[in-house]
């Protein structure tokens, strides 16, 4: 923070320009993020079909959503996707990150290929996987491999698993890149010292690598967890929340209520819940980071 005070402009004329430099970004952010955020909360207390007039209706929408058994189910699916994708992606990303941190040339080449899924749109990925997993026309049927030609998207348990797999396929490269950066920052001297003390590789991993990656793990987990709330495109194109409502996460629930059933009031309530869950999780994870993370967050401010 001290560097900021040093940088602060001294003459009044120059100081008066700085706030104006932030103005265009601020105007856009207020217009299309802050106002909509307030708006989504307000719309939760109205009835609107998306076309006609908006009528205030008190707590009607909230009551409708909170008494709907669909809500606990959507919450359950959302947290299920969050936990399962975190639990699969994190160990895999740490492993791949440590692997990619090696400076061998072929590992850099592998890294280039790993990264490709991250460049594709979720819609394109979902379309490709839908074709690939098709029980009659897909890869499994084409190869004549029975265990691969299941009705992957037609059974609730399998469809949920497929979503987790594709999410991981798409995002593990990104997180292993974060871990790669983290691992490369660990001083080699720590490992040399551990080796002198006779610590084996596994011991070194758990006593040096993992503790040193603490903040990297928190950063990556935060991105994963908050990001998992926004898996709308992938699931919408892949399963539309089905079969039944097996993969109907909150974001999908919001879209379907709002733009398919024309119930903008209840959809806004779901959106409000989505915002609160996101904020709550971000705060929780920041707290897990402890004092140091909070301090460095401030430094970033």
């Amino acid at each position, binding site marked *: 923070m001290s*560097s900021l005070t040093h*940088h*602060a*402009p001294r003459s009044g004329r*120059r*100081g008066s320009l*700085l*706030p104006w430099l*932030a103005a*265009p*970004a601020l105007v856009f*952010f207020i*217009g*299309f*993020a802050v*106002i909509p955020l307030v*708006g*989504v909360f307000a719309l939760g207390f109205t009835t609107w079909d*998306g076309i006609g007039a908006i009528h205030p209706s008190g707590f009607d929408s909230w009551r409708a959503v909170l008494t709907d058994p669909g809500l606990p189910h959507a919450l359950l699916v959302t947290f299920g996707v969050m936990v399962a994708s975190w639990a699969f992606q994190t160990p*895999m990303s740490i*492993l*791949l990150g*440590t*692997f990619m*941190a*090696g400076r061998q040339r072929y590992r850099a080449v592998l890294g280039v*290929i*790993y*990264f*490709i*899924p991250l*460049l594709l*749109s979720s*819609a*394109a990925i979902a379309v*490709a996987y839908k074709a690939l997993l098709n029980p009659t026309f897909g*890869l499994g049927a*084409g190869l004549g491999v029975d265990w691969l030609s299941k009705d992957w998207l037609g059974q609730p348990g399998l469809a949920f698993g497929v979503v987790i797999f594709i999410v991981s396929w798409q995002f593990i490269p990104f997180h292993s890149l974060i871990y790669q*950066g*983290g691992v*490369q*920052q*660990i001083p080699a001297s720590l490992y040399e010292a551990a080796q002198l003390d006779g610590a084996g*590789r596994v011991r070194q991993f758990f006593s*040096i690598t993992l503790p040193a990656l603490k*903040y990297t793990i928190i*950063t990556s987990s935060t991105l994963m967890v*908050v990001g998992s709330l926004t898996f*709308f*495109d992938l699931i919408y*194109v892949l399963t539309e929340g089905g079969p039944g409502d097996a993969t109907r996460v909150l974001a999908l629930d919001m*879209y379907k209520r709002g733009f398919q059933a024309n119930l903008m009031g209840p959809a*806004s309530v779901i959106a409000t819940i*989505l*915002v609160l869950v996101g904020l709550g999780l971000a*705060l929780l994870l920041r707290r897990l980071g402890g004092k140091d*993370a909070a301090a*460095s967050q401030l*430094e*970033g401010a």
Partner: protein
Amino acid sequence: MTTTLTKPQRQEKIARRERRPRSATQRRNWLGGLSGWLWLVVVAVPLYWTVITSLKDQSKYYAGNALAPSADSTLDNYRLVIESDFGQYFINSVVVAVGAVVPAITFSFMAAYAIVRGGSTRFLRVVNGLFLMGLAIPLQATIIPIYLIVIKLHLYDSLLALILPSIAFAIPLSVLVLANFIRDVPKELFDSMRVDGATEWTTLWRLAAPLTRPALITVTIYSALTIWNGFLLPLVLTQSPDKRTLPLAVWSLQGQFQVNVPAILAAVVLTTLPILVLYAFGRRQLLSGLTAGFGK
């Protein structure tokens, strides 16, 4: 959400960089190696299958080995996709991406500069807090009021309706990453610019911009990618076929082609091709920039 380094940590990091980090990773790591090659297969097989199937003839693709390239490859599927107005969708995507990224990055850079240089004023601290909050909120949740605003502005079913919210969504992360890099510019340089009588406006473009060029390229690529691949905004805010962007087009082509799997996959490949070409050129910038921006 990204944590940044405290000052001593950062100096230490710079010092370490000079020593060239020779970490544990040069020793053998069997488990890592195994998972590395395994992941290559997991990533590569679906991509490979998509490409070779898109080159097969619809009537014959089902007969042969699904993982072997067809002997008589055909570009007919690609012709079919291109004839389905693909050019229009491509142009729409370019207009939206360029139209949103240029202002988004320009405004974010100006804001990041103001926040770093004038961060002690109350106004700029509040602004910065607002942007940080934007990182923690799933902005997709604001789609219903955005839909309402777009209708009220009479922009529904136009490309501008996609551009305006995209600018806003790109700002928080861009400001955070750019501010982190502007903060690394030695203060003596700013001082000497001031002694030379330069205004903040000149300092912004003549000093800060060239020195943070890698970060500018990174946030440009990253937000362009996000906007290029965006699906929810076009889904909700447009309806005419001639306003579709590529992700929406690939989704609707899937419905149109039904069981013509090779054509569907040709559409997937075609929508992806422009990004892959850019990736081939800007890979280093993208990869190093992402680690610098997020791994801090």
